[in-house]
Protein backbone atom coordinates (compact mmCIF):
# COMPACT_ATOMS: atom_id res chain seq x y z
CA UNK A 1 0.00 0.00 0.00
CA UNK A 2 2.76 2.33 1.05
CA UNK A 3 4.66 1.86 -2.16
CA UNK A 4 1.47 2.25 -4.15
CA UNK A 5 0.82 5.57 -2.47
CA UNK A 6 4.39 6.64 -3.15
CA UNK A 7 4.00 5.55 -6.74
CA UNK A 8 0.86 7.64 -7.02
CA UNK A 9 2.66 10.65 -5.53
CA UNK A 10 5.63 10.13 -7.81
CA UNK A 11 3.37 9.85 -10.84
CA UNK A 12 1.55 13.04 -9.94
CA UNK A 13 4.85 14.80 -9.47
CA UNK A 14 6.13 13.67 -12.82
CA UNK A 15 3.02 14.63 -14.69
CA UNK A 16 3.13 18.06 -13.09
CA UNK A 17 6.83 18.39 -13.83
CA UNK A 18 6.75 17.22 -17.41
CA UNK A 19 6.09 20.69 -18.80
CA UNK A 20 8.79 22.56 -16.92
CA UNK A 21 11.05 19.70 -15.90
CA UNK A 22 10.77 21.00 -12.34
CA UNK A 23 8.94 19.36 -9.49
CA UNK A 24 7.72 20.91 -6.25
CA UNK A 25 9.60 19.75 -3.16
CA UNK A 26 7.60 20.40 0.03
CA UNK A 27 9.49 21.98 2.91
CA UNK A 28 10.22 20.03 6.05
CA UNK A 29 12.31 19.51 9.14
CA UNK A 30 15.70 18.09 8.23
CA UNK A 31 18.86 17.07 10.00
CA UNK A 32 21.87 17.66 7.77
CA UNK A 33 25.15 15.82 8.14
CA UNK A 34 26.61 19.30 8.49
CA UNK A 35 25.85 21.12 11.73
CA UNK A 36 23.59 24.07 10.99
CA UNK A 37 23.79 25.79 14.37
CA UNK A 38 26.57 27.67 16.08
CA UNK A 39 27.88 24.57 17.84
CA UNK A 40 29.98 22.50 15.47
CA UNK A 41 29.29 19.26 17.33
CA UNK A 42 25.63 19.49 18.26
CA UNK A 43 23.11 18.24 15.75
CA UNK A 44 20.41 20.78 15.04
CA UNK A 45 17.54 20.01 12.68
CA UNK A 46 16.48 22.96 10.56
CA UNK A 47 13.44 23.86 8.51
CA UNK A 48 13.96 23.50 4.80
CA UNK A 49 11.75 25.89 2.84
CA UNK A 50 9.77 24.46 -0.07
CA UNK A 51 11.34 24.80 -3.49
CA UNK A 52 11.06 23.30 -6.97
CA UNK A 53 13.88 21.18 -8.38
CA UNK A 54 14.76 19.99 -11.83
CA UNK A 55 13.65 16.40 -12.28
CA UNK A 56 16.82 15.59 -14.24
CA UNK A 57 20.34 16.97 -14.33
CA UNK A 58 21.04 19.45 -17.14
CA UNK A 59 21.89 17.55 -20.32
CA UNK A 60 24.55 18.00 -22.97
CA UNK A 61 21.86 19.10 -25.46
CA UNK A 62 20.45 21.68 -23.03
CA UNK A 63 23.87 23.09 -22.25
CA UNK A 64 24.73 23.25 -25.96
CA UNK A 65 21.59 25.32 -26.55
CA UNK A 66 22.66 27.58 -23.67
CA UNK A 67 26.14 28.28 -25.06
CA UNK A 68 24.70 28.94 -28.50
CA UNK A 69 22.32 31.50 -26.99
CA UNK A 70 25.02 32.92 -24.69
CA UNK A 71 28.28 32.62 -26.64
CA UNK A 72 30.24 34.29 -23.84
CA UNK A 73 30.01 30.88 -22.12
CA UNK A 74 31.59 29.03 -25.06
CA UNK A 75 34.92 27.47 -24.19
CA UNK A 76 36.80 29.73 -26.64
CA UNK A 77 35.37 32.88 -25.07
CA UNK A 78 34.92 32.15 -21.38
CA UNK A 79 37.25 34.24 -19.18
CA UNK A 80 39.81 32.25 -17.18
CA UNK A 81 38.23 33.55 -13.97
CA UNK A 82 35.10 31.51 -14.75
CA UNK A 83 36.50 28.25 -16.07
CA UNK A 84 39.74 26.36 -16.27
CA UNK A 85 41.15 24.96 -19.50
CA UNK A 86 39.34 21.62 -19.20
CA UNK A 87 35.94 23.34 -19.49
CA UNK A 88 33.82 21.38 -22.02
CA UNK A 89 37.01 19.61 -23.03
CA UNK A 90 35.20 16.58 -24.43
CA UNK A 91 33.17 18.67 -26.88
CA UNK A 92 33.97 18.51 -30.58
CA UNK A 93 33.61 22.27 -31.09
CA UNK A 94 33.22 25.46 -29.10
CA UNK A 95 29.42 25.33 -29.33
CA UNK A 96 29.04 21.77 -30.54
CA UNK A 97 29.23 18.68 -28.32
CA UNK A 98 29.77 16.52 -31.41
CA UNK A 99 28.54 13.01 -32.18
CA UNK A 100 30.47 11.22 -29.44
CA UNK A 101 28.47 12.77 -26.60
CA UNK A 102 24.91 11.53 -26.19
CA UNK A 103 22.65 14.60 -26.22
CA UNK A 104 20.58 13.26 -23.33
CA UNK A 105 23.57 12.45 -21.12
CA UNK A 106 24.27 14.86 -18.27
CA UNK A 107 26.57 17.74 -19.13
CA UNK A 108 29.87 17.58 -17.24
CA UNK A 109 33.18 19.45 -17.51
CA UNK A 110 31.37 22.61 -16.41
CA UNK A 111 32.56 25.09 -13.82
CA UNK A 112 30.46 26.44 -10.94
CA UNK A 113 30.27 29.84 -12.63
CA UNK A 114 28.97 28.26 -15.84
CA UNK A 115 26.46 26.08 -13.98
CA UNK A 116 25.23 29.12 -12.09
CA UNK A 117 24.88 31.13 -15.30
CA UNK A 118 22.93 28.29 -16.92
CA UNK A 119 20.47 28.16 -14.03
CA UNK A 120 20.07 31.94 -14.08
CA UNK A 121 19.29 31.69 -17.80
CA UNK A 122 16.21 29.61 -17.01
CA UNK A 123 15.09 31.78 -14.10
CA UNK A 124 16.54 29.43 -11.56
CA UNK A 125 19.59 28.99 -9.37
CA UNK A 126 21.81 26.18 -8.15
CA UNK A 127 20.44 24.32 -5.13
CA UNK A 128 22.04 24.93 -1.78
CA UNK A 129 23.82 21.99 -0.19
CA UNK A 130 20.95 21.67 2.28
CA UNK A 131 18.36 21.50 -0.51
CA UNK A 132 20.40 18.93 -2.42
CA UNK A 133 21.02 16.81 0.67
CA UNK A 134 17.31 17.01 1.61
CA UNK A 135 16.30 15.61 -1.78
CA UNK A 136 19.15 13.10 -1.77
CA UNK A 137 17.90 11.61 1.50
CA UNK A 138 14.92 10.10 -0.34
CA UNK A 139 14.74 6.64 -1.83
CA UNK A 140 11.98 5.72 -4.24
CA UNK A 141 9.30 5.57 -1.57
CA UNK A 142 10.53 7.44 1.51
CA UNK A 143 11.55 11.07 1.82
CA UNK A 144 14.17 10.19 4.39
CA UNK A 145 15.61 6.74 3.87
CA UNK A 146 18.93 7.52 5.47
CA UNK A 147 18.33 5.22 8.42
CA UNK A 148 18.11 2.24 6.10
CA UNK A 149 21.50 0.53 5.96
CA UNK A 150 20.55 -1.45 2.84
CA UNK A 151 19.71 1.72 0.96
CA UNK A 152 22.96 3.37 2.05
CA UNK A 153 24.88 0.34 0.78
CA UNK A 154 23.05 0.60 -2.53
CA UNK A 155 24.22 4.20 -2.97
CA UNK A 156 27.73 3.30 -1.95
CA UNK A 157 27.84 0.55 -4.55
CA UNK A 158 27.74 3.26 -7.21
CA UNK A 159 31.06 4.57 -5.96
CA UNK A 160 32.55 1.10 -6.13
CA UNK A 161 31.82 0.72 -9.82
CA UNK A 162 34.49 1.89 -12.20
CA UNK A 163 33.31 5.11 -13.81
CA UNK A 164 31.71 4.58 -17.19
CA UNK A 165 33.52 5.82 -20.24
CA UNK A 166 30.23 7.21 -21.49
CA UNK A 167 27.63 8.54 -19.09
CA UNK A 168 24.15 7.11 -19.61
CA UNK A 169 21.20 9.34 -20.48
CA UNK A 170 19.44 11.18 -17.67
CA UNK A 171 16.03 9.89 -16.62
CA UNK A 172 16.83 7.30 -13.98
CA UNK A 173 14.19 6.01 -11.60
CA UNK A 174 12.68 8.96 -9.70
CA UNK A 175 12.86 9.14 -5.93
CA UNK A 176 9.92 9.86 -3.60
CA UNK A 177 9.89 13.50 -4.74
CA UNK A 178 9.83 12.49 -8.41
CA UNK A 179 13.46 13.53 -8.88
CA UNK A 180 15.84 11.20 -10.67
CA UNK A 181 19.57 10.61 -11.00
CA UNK A 182 20.35 12.14 -7.61
CA UNK A 183 22.58 9.16 -6.92
CA UNK A 184 24.37 6.94 -9.36
CA UNK A 185 25.05 9.17 -12.36
CA UNK A 186 27.10 12.30 -11.70
CA UNK A 187 28.32 14.54 -8.90
CA UNK A 188 26.47 17.86 -8.80
CA UNK A 189 27.48 21.44 -8.12
CA UNK A 190 25.67 23.24 -5.31
CA UNK A 191 25.47 26.99 -4.92
CA UNK A 192 27.33 27.02 -1.61
CA UNK A 193 29.99 24.47 -2.56
CA UNK A 194 32.49 26.80 -0.91
CA UNK A 195 30.69 26.67 2.41
CA UNK A 196 31.00 23.04 3.41
CA UNK A 197 34.39 22.27 4.89
CA UNK A 198 35.45 25.61 6.24
CA UNK A 199 38.80 24.31 7.43
CA UNK A 200 40.44 24.28 3.99
CA UNK A 201 42.50 27.40 4.27
CA UNK A 202 43.73 26.75 7.78
CA UNK A 203 45.86 23.87 6.57
CA UNK A 204 48.45 26.22 5.19
CA UNK A 205 48.57 28.47 8.24
CA UNK A 206 49.87 27.94 11.73
CA UNK A 207 47.26 30.20 13.28
CA UNK A 208 44.71 28.73 15.65
CA UNK A 209 41.40 27.94 13.99
CA UNK A 210 39.66 30.36 16.29
CA UNK A 211 41.38 33.19 14.49
CA UNK A 212 40.42 31.93 11.06
CA UNK A 213 36.69 31.65 11.36
CA UNK A 214 33.73 33.52 12.64
CA UNK A 215 30.84 31.60 14.05
CA UNK A 216 31.46 28.04 14.94
CA UNK A 217 34.93 27.29 13.67
CA UNK A 218 35.61 24.21 11.63
CA UNK A 219 32.94 21.81 10.48
CA UNK A 220 32.19 18.42 11.92
CA UNK A 221 30.28 15.76 10.11
CA UNK A 222 27.49 14.66 12.41
CA UNK A 223 26.35 11.45 10.79
CA UNK A 224 29.48 9.56 9.95
CA UNK A 225 27.49 6.65 8.53
CA UNK A 226 26.48 8.77 5.57
CA UNK A 227 29.67 8.00 3.68
CA UNK A 228 28.17 8.65 0.28
CA UNK A 229 26.99 12.10 1.27
CA UNK A 230 30.24 12.83 3.07
CA UNK A 231 32.13 11.93 -0.11
CA UNK A 232 30.07 14.52 -1.95
CA UNK A 233 31.05 17.13 0.61
CA UNK A 234 34.69 16.15 0.38
CA UNK A 235 34.65 16.44 -3.41
CA UNK A 236 32.81 19.76 -3.49
CA UNK A 237 35.05 21.19 -0.79
CA UNK A 238 38.15 20.36 -2.77
CA UNK A 239 36.98 22.38 -5.77
CA UNK A 240 37.45 25.95 -6.84
CA UNK A 241 34.67 27.72 -8.70
CA UNK A 242 36.50 27.57 -12.04
CA UNK A 243 37.25 23.82 -11.76
CA UNK A 244 35.61 21.23 -13.97
CA UNK A 245 35.62 17.44 -13.90
CA UNK A 246 34.29 14.81 -16.26
CA UNK A 247 31.88 13.44 -13.65
CA UNK A 248 30.57 16.71 -12.20
CA UNK A 249 27.32 18.12 -13.55
CA UNK A 250 24.45 20.08 -12.02
CA UNK A 251 20.74 20.69 -11.81
CA UNK A 252 18.83 23.85 -10.87
CA UNK A 253 16.11 24.84 -8.42
CA UNK A 254 13.40 27.49 -8.50
CA UNK A 255 11.48 29.13 -5.70
CA UNK A 256 8.35 27.33 -4.55
CA UNK A 257 5.46 28.61 -6.68
CA UNK A 258 3.37 29.96 -3.79
CA UNK A 259 6.37 31.41 -2.01
CA UNK A 260 7.63 33.33 -4.99
CA UNK A 261 6.70 37.02 -5.09
Amino acid at each position, binding site marked *: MKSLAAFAIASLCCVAAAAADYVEVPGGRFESVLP*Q*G*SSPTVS*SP*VNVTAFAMRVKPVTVAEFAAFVRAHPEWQRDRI*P*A*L*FAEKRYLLSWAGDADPGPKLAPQSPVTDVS*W*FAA*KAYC*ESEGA*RLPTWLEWEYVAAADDSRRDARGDAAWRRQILSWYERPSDAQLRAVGGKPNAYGIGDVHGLVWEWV*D*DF*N*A*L*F*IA*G*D*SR*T*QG*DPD*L*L*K*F*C*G*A*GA*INIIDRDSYAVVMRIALLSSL*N*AADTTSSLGFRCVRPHEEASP
Partner: protein
Amino acid sequence: MNIRSINRREALLSLGAIACLPLAARAAASATAPVPGNSLYQLHAALTDQDGRPFDMASLRGTPVLVSMFYSSCQMVCPMVFETIHSTLKALPPDERAEMKVVMISFDPARDTVAVLKKTAAVRNCDAQWTLARGDESTSRKIAAALNIQYRRLSDGEFNHSTIITLLDREGRIASRTGKLGTVDTALVKAVHEVHAVKG
Protein backbone atom coordinates in the same frame (compact mmCIF):
# COMPACT_ATOMS: atom_id res chain seq x y z
CA MET B 1 87.85 42.74 -24.64
CA ASN B 2 86.78 46.33 -24.85
CA ILE B 3 84.71 45.78 -27.94
CA ARG B 4 83.20 42.73 -26.42
CA SER B 5 82.11 44.57 -23.29
CA ILE B 6 80.53 47.35 -25.37
CA ASN B 7 78.67 44.73 -27.33
CA ARG B 8 77.46 43.21 -24.16
CA ARG B 9 76.32 46.59 -22.89
CA GLU B 10 74.51 47.24 -26.16
CA ALA B 11 72.96 43.84 -25.94
CA LEU B 12 71.78 44.58 -22.42
CA LEU B 13 70.42 47.95 -23.49
CA SER B 14 68.47 46.46 -26.34
CA LEU B 15 67.21 43.74 -24.03
CA GLY B 16 66.05 46.50 -21.73
CA ALA B 17 64.32 48.21 -24.60
CA ILE B 18 62.53 45.02 -25.53
CA ALA B 19 61.49 44.49 -21.93
CA CYS B 20 60.24 48.08 -21.62
CA LEU B 21 58.34 48.22 -24.86
CA PRO B 22 55.54 45.88 -24.00
CA LEU B 23 55.22 47.64 -20.65
CA ALA B 24 54.85 51.03 -22.30
CA ALA B 25 52.46 49.60 -24.83
CA ARG B 26 50.48 47.99 -22.05
CA ALA B 27 50.29 51.23 -20.08
CA ALA B 28 49.07 53.14 -23.11
CA ALA B 29 46.51 50.49 -23.91
CA SER B 30 45.31 49.84 -20.37
CA ALA B 31 42.50 52.36 -20.52
CA THR B 32 40.86 50.62 -23.45
CA ALA B 33 42.35 47.11 -23.43
CA PRO B 34 39.96 44.33 -22.50
CA VAL B 35 40.01 43.23 -18.87
CA PRO B 36 42.27 40.14 -18.57
CA GLY B 37 40.40 36.84 -18.43
CA ASN B 38 41.62 36.02 -14.92
CA SER B 39 40.73 39.44 -13.53
CA LEU B 40 38.18 39.75 -10.76
CA TYR B 41 36.71 42.60 -12.77
CA GLN B 42 35.25 39.98 -15.15
CA LEU B 43 32.55 39.52 -12.51
CA HIS B 44 30.85 42.85 -13.24
CA ALA B 45 29.36 42.51 -9.79
CA ALA B 46 26.57 44.97 -9.04
CA LEU B 47 27.36 46.37 -5.61
CA THR B 48 26.28 49.33 -3.48
CA ASP B 49 28.72 51.24 -1.28
CA GLN B 50 28.34 52.59 2.26
CA ASP B 51 26.92 55.84 0.89
CA GLY B 52 24.25 54.04 -1.12
CA ARG B 53 25.95 54.67 -4.45
CA PRO B 54 26.28 51.95 -7.12
CA PHE B 55 29.77 50.52 -6.92
CA ASP B 56 31.53 48.58 -9.66
CA MET B 57 34.82 47.08 -8.53
CA ALA B 58 36.12 47.45 -12.08
CA SER B 59 36.12 51.22 -11.49
CA LEU B 60 39.25 50.57 -9.41
CA ARG B 61 41.12 49.28 -12.46
CA GLY B 62 44.53 50.91 -12.62
CA THR B 63 45.22 50.91 -8.89
CA PRO B 64 46.19 48.16 -6.43
CA VAL B 65 43.35 46.96 -4.19
CA LEU B 66 43.12 45.02 -0.95
CA VAL B 67 39.84 43.13 -0.82
CA SER B 68 38.22 41.00 1.88
CA MET B 69 34.78 39.94 3.04
CA PHE B 70 33.05 40.47 6.39
CA TYR B 71 29.72 40.87 8.10
CA SER B 72 28.96 43.72 10.45
CA SER B 73 27.46 41.76 13.33
CA CYS B 74 30.58 39.58 13.55
CA GLN B 75 32.16 40.20 16.92
CA MET B 76 35.44 38.35 16.82
CA VAL B 77 37.30 37.80 13.58
CA CYS B 78 35.89 40.56 11.38
CA PRO B 79 37.13 43.44 13.55
CA MET B 80 40.55 41.80 13.34
CA VAL B 81 40.38 41.83 9.54
CA PHE B 82 39.82 45.59 9.61
CA GLU B 83 42.66 46.02 12.13
CA THR B 84 45.00 43.86 10.07
CA ILE B 85 44.32 45.90 6.94
CA HIS B 86 44.88 49.14 8.88
CA SER B 87 48.21 47.75 10.12
CA THR B 88 49.16 46.62 6.63
CA LEU B 89 48.43 50.07 5.21
CA LYS B 90 50.58 51.65 7.94
CA ALA B 91 53.43 49.30 7.06
CA LEU B 92 53.51 50.59 3.45
CA PRO B 93 55.68 53.44 2.14
CA PRO B 94 53.59 56.67 1.80
CA ASP B 95 53.23 56.51 -2.01
CA GLU B 96 52.09 52.88 -1.94
CA ARG B 97 49.72 53.58 0.93
CA ALA B 98 48.26 56.62 -0.85
CA GLU B 99 47.29 54.79 -4.01
CA MET B 100 45.94 51.64 -2.34
CA LYS B 101 42.18 51.11 -2.23
CA VAL B 102 40.43 48.79 0.21
CA VAL B 103 37.19 46.99 -0.59
CA MET B 104 35.25 45.09 2.06
CA ILE B 105 32.27 43.09 0.80
CA SER B 106 29.53 41.81 3.08
CA PHE B 107 28.49 38.14 3.32
CA ASP B 108 25.29 39.30 4.92
CA PRO B 109 23.41 41.63 2.56
CA ALA B 110 20.15 40.93 4.41
CA ARG B 111 21.39 42.62 7.58
CA ASP B 112 24.22 44.77 6.23
CA THR B 113 22.09 47.55 4.82
CA VAL B 114 23.68 50.74 3.53
CA ALA B 115 23.07 52.34 6.94
CA VAL B 116 24.78 49.46 8.73
CA LEU B 117 27.73 49.61 6.33
CA LYS B 118 28.02 53.35 6.96
CA LYS B 119 28.05 52.78 10.70
CA THR B 120 30.58 49.96 10.42
CA ALA B 121 32.84 52.18 8.32
CA ALA B 122 32.75 54.80 11.08
CA VAL B 123 33.29 52.30 13.89
CA ARG B 124 36.23 50.70 12.07
CA ASN B 125 37.85 54.03 11.16
CA CYS B 126 37.44 53.54 7.43
CA ASP B 127 38.13 56.74 5.51
CA ALA B 128 37.59 57.47 1.81
CA GLN B 129 40.29 54.94 0.94
CA TRP B 130 37.83 52.22 1.98
CA THR B 131 34.69 51.00 0.27
CA LEU B 132 32.30 48.83 2.25
CA ALA B 133 29.94 47.20 -0.20
CA ARG B 134 26.93 44.93 -0.41
CA GLY B 135 25.27 43.07 -3.27
CA ASP B 136 22.61 40.38 -3.40
CA GLU B 137 23.34 36.91 -2.02
CA SER B 138 24.22 35.52 -5.42
CA THR B 139 26.73 38.31 -6.00
CA SER B 140 28.35 37.74 -2.59
CA ARG B 141 28.65 34.05 -3.41
CA LYS B 142 30.28 34.78 -6.78
CA ILE B 143 32.80 37.19 -5.29
CA ALA B 144 33.63 34.72 -2.53
CA ALA B 145 34.07 31.97 -5.12
CA ALA B 146 36.44 34.13 -7.17
CA LEU B 147 38.42 35.00 -4.03
CA ASN B 148 38.38 31.42 -2.72
CA ILE B 149 36.68 32.58 0.44
CA GLN B 150 34.42 30.03 2.09
CA TYR B 151 31.36 31.11 4.05
CA ARG B 152 28.20 29.58 5.39
CA ARG B 153 25.25 31.06 7.19
CA LEU B 154 24.36 29.21 10.36
CA SER B 155 20.82 28.80 11.65
CA ASP B 156 21.46 31.40 14.38
CA GLY B 157 22.35 34.08 11.84
CA GLU B 158 26.09 33.88 12.41
CA PHE B 159 28.42 32.98 9.57
CA ASN B 160 31.20 30.48 9.39
CA HIS B 161 33.80 31.91 7.07
CA SER B 162 37.44 31.69 6.17
CA THR B 163 39.30 34.94 6.50
CA ILE B 164 41.44 35.92 3.56
CA ILE B 165 42.83 39.29 2.58
CA THR B 166 43.54 39.43 -1.15
CA LEU B 167 45.76 41.86 -3.04
CA LEU B 168 44.61 42.67 -6.58
CA ASP B 169 47.03 44.10 -9.10
CA ARG B 170 46.15 47.07 -11.28
CA GLU B 171 44.19 44.80 -13.63
CA GLY B 172 42.19 43.11 -10.88
CA ARG B 173 44.19 39.88 -10.93
CA ILE B 174 44.96 38.14 -7.64
CA ALA B 175 48.57 39.05 -6.80
CA SER B 176 48.73 37.74 -3.24
CA ARG B 177 46.53 36.31 -0.50
CA THR B 178 47.00 36.06 3.22
CA GLY B 179 45.10 34.40 6.04
CA LYS B 180 47.30 35.92 8.74
CA LEU B 181 45.41 38.10 11.15
CA GLY B 182 46.52 40.41 13.92
CA THR B 183 49.92 40.83 12.36
CA VAL B 184 51.26 42.36 9.17
CA ASP B 185 52.09 39.61 6.66
CA THR B 186 55.47 40.56 5.22
CA ALA B 187 54.79 38.49 2.09
CA LEU B 188 51.69 40.60 1.44
CA VAL B 189 53.64 43.84 1.93
CA LYS B 190 56.31 42.61 -0.47
CA ALA B 191 53.62 41.82 -3.03
CA VAL B 192 52.24 45.36 -2.66
CA HIS B 193 55.73 46.71 -3.46
CA GLU B 194 55.80 44.59 -6.61
CA VAL B 195 52.30 45.54 -7.73
CA HIS B 196 53.03 49.20 -7.05
CA ALA B 197 56.22 49.04 -9.13
CA VAL B 198 54.24 48.01 -12.23
CA LYS B 199 52.80 51.36 -13.18
CA GLY B 200 49.40 51.45 -14.75
